[in-house]
């Protein structure tokens, strides 16, 4: 393989993985902007989305084989059910764990989300066990060739789904009244309240949107990588690093952060060693925090300053 092909190959692989990080980072940013909370249970939504879709799609043995499920729905229906149920999980997380503590400090609420992540991981372990799961690729067929580099059809799916979601989210936040209401809450929650906007209802909505987006991320990657009950933590951390790189309050920054992180990881794994893949994220996080606490694309006067981050 020529050097040029190699570079394109790493780039494509990086953009694919980076798209997933971008979606998870968007999940972080959505919740953070509206509530000031960094939700460390974010990655669990990806695990739940994938696991629920898999369970609806193929014969599964849950609770250590005590509960046989044979729904065998078509893939699109199974994916939809994965997103819908995960969204409900996200809404429940807010209603049961965050909203009752709304008078607590932001830091306490962040710690609650860490606790919630443990609970969700434990529940996933009980239900689905330690086995790795996988979905079939969405559209089987030979991979595409771009300048000699290989792009699998599933990678195309990942990138396309990310792009479509970005367009939808952009439209929702900038063109609909509800989207603008969410932006107003992120901008100035007190003034939003004086307009008759309920911050709690908006926070609930933010958790719903965020968990849906992250569930979709979990479902589109699961044909190209195995999903296990404990993947949530890594996914959370990668999404978090991407969000921080993007300035934490800026959706466009989160997407750029996610994709650059994916590309960096891909090159690091290719030219140094794949063992360094995860270390790279944390080196990036360290550098960003040390050089510029606010990330590179932070919006001014944002929720970050309110939360003291």
């Amino acid at each position, binding site marked *: 393989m020529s050097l040029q092909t190699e570079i394109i190959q790493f780039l494509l692989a990086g953009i694919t993985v980076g798209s997933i990080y971008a979606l998870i980072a968007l999940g972080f940013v959505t919740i953070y902007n509206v509530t000031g909370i960094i939700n460390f249970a974010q990655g669990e939504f990806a695990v739940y989305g994938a696991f629920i879709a898999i369970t609806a799609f193929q014969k599964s043995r849950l609770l250590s084989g005590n509960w046989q499920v044979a729904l065998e729905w078509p893939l699109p229906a199974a994916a939809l059910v994965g997103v819908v149920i995960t969204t409900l999980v996200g809404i429940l997380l807010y209603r049961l764990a965050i909203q009752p503590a709304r008078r607590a400090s932001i830091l306490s609420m962040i710690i609650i989300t860490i606790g919630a992540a443990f609970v969700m991981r434990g529940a996933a372990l009980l239900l689905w066990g330690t086995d790795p799961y996988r979905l079939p690729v969405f559209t089987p067929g030979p991979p595409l060739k771009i300048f000699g580099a290989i792009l699998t059809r599933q990678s195309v799916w990942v990138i396309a789904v990310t792009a479509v979601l970005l367009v939808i989210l952009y439209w929702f936040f900038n063109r609909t009244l509800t989207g*603008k209401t969410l932006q107003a809450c992120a901008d100035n929650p007190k003034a939003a309240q004086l307009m008759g906007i309920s911050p709690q209802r908006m926070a609930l909505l933010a958790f719903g949107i965020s968990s849906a987006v992250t569930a979709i991320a979990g479902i589109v990657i699961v044909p190209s990588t195995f999903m296990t009950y404990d993947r949530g933590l890594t996914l959370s951390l990668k999404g978090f690093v991407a969000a921080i790189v993007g300035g934490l309050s800026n959706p466009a920054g989160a997407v750029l952060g996610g994709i650059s992180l994916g590309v960096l990881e891909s090159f690091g794994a290719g030219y140094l060693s794949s063992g360094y893949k995860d270390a790279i994220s944390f080196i990036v996080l360290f550098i960003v925090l040390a050089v510029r606490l606010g990330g590179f694309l932070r919006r001014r006067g944002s929720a970050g300053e309110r939360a003291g981050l």
Partner: protein
Amino acid sequence: MLEIKNVSTSYGHVEALRGVSMAAHPGEIVSLIGANGAGKTTLLNTISGMTPARSGQILLNGVEITRLSPEKIVNLGVCQVPERRQVFATLSVRDNLTLGAYTRMRGRGEPPIKDRKTLHLDIETIYAMFPILKQREKQLAGTLSGGEQQMLAIGRSLMGRPKVLLLDEPSLGLAPLIVRDIFEIINCLREIDTIILLVEQNARAALRVADRGYVLETGRIVMAGPAADLAADPAIQQAYLGKQGR
């Protein structure tokens, strides 16, 4: 009418309002004057539900609103223009105005906005009052000057068709010429037949524009009456208008 009966509010153990009673009618401007920390802003926040009253009653046209959530109180037509304007800095001027009509667009406020055309006409009404906002329509609110932001904050509240308009320090931090404009606008608001409560440090201007006034001192109302009488009172002149007493 808006009636406030023996209302007390506290922050923790600190009492900010102690048994405040007052009333205001549609079409009149009522000024609340007093020193820093006298409880003026707290009184407005108590009416809007942001800082709920500990005891006492607040009635709007005979309906008790004392312990409702801020959102419910806005639904009933109480709109506050908060201190330091608090426009949505990252949204456009037009979006700020649109969000001012949020309760009406959701069908909770009166009169409801059911289509784009009604919304558009209402926004045009605000532009007719504040032509500069029309020029700035697409700009982010954070890029406006202080005076323009104050006009936007007032316009945004008017989009909610308030029965009660609470104005908190509208002249704060503005240049004297702009302050004059803002007070002229407040004077014109009398025509929309709304109850207007005006909190001001600038007591002279506040009493000039108002019909009646209340003087707050350490959480209590110490004086009340027609604005002209208050402005002529030697004690008030000495304490708030910067004139030497005889």
